[in-house]
């Protein structure tokens, strides 16, 4: 007779556990298939100087952030002061992918709010963005010394994301030997 109560209770507990896990998940966060894979190849004109190019080769040799941004992107504006802070602290080189933007608008944005990027690549039609699996700007990729993508942050980098996730990871990656 006791089983009569144990079984429904067990089913209920299992359901609560699953629903609880479901509540914690963010459906907006789609796991990137690029983690642990080399950065997709590209070569694009730079935002500031169209005659020069920026490509995946430029992301090799150091741990860097590759931040996807656009002047039309509201959350990028929100993230921007923190990127400025990072670039001033010179913890890590930050490169930009200016996604589906207009050159004048992008340059105006950088002039008005400041430019945290060493270089920004100009991806007017968004095809490089698609090749990197970009679906919601801002997105930030952590690329290691060998040019391998190690982490992807979808949505703005906040103080919390930085101290809890990005900074510890970056320190670990900076300590890695290239030959290893």
């Amino acid at each position, binding site marked *: 007779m006791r089983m009569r109560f144990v*079984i429904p209770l067990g089913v209920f507990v299992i359901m609560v556990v699953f629903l609880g896990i479901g509540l914690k998940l963010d*459906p*907006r966060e*789609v*796991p*990137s*298939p*690029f983690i642990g894979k080399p950065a997709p190849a590209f070569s694009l004109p730079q935002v500031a100087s169209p005659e020069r190019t920026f490509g995946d080769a430029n992301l090799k040799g150091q741990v860097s952030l590759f931040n996807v941004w656009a002047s039309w992107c509201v959350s990028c504006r929100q993230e921007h002061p923190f990127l400025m802070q990072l670039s001033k602290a010179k913890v890590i080189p930050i490169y930009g992918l200016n996604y*589906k933007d207009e050159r004048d608008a992008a340059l105006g944005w950088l002039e008005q709010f400041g430019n945290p990027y060493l270089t920004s690549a100009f991806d007017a*039609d*968004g*095809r490089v963005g*698609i*090749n*990197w*699996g970009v*679906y*919601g700007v801002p997105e930030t990729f952590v690329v290691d010394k060998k040019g391998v993508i190690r982490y992807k942050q979808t949505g703005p980098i906040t103080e919390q994301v930085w101290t809890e996730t990005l900074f510890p990871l970056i320190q670990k990656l900076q300590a890695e030997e290239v030959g290893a």
Partner: protein
Amino acid sequence: MSPRILILLLAALSLPVTATEIRDFAAPSRQAAYENLIKDLRCLVCQNQSLADSDADLAKDLRTEVYNIIQSGKNEDEAVKFLTDRYGDFVLYRPPVKPITYLLWLGPFAALLGGGLFLWRQARRRSVADDDDELSAEERQRLERLKAKIEG
């Protein structure tokens, strides 16, 4: 409002409303392949819409990519691979069967089996219980006595 205007207005309202662009295809089979594909692929921006339904900018770009792949003579699998390579299995409304999705695919059948087993056991227990409804020897004797009393 004259009936004619009313009819025209209603006709305008009944025009098919779709987010998709008008595209030319080399062959009708490719058009069918394209249309099936974009119905089965999920838009990443508005996640409850397919690429076919979504009006998001990214959905438009991804439709163009799918169109270019199909139009270039490649098959559906290559278009699907293009998207899953970049966005993962998430873009598929029909997730592939692999260890991580076993629970998803087999869970309903396991639940059905478990439920069936439970019902079967319950039914058996009840039929055993039914046997207990038969009168015991003592009860039968009492019944006989009562019957004798009434009849006698």
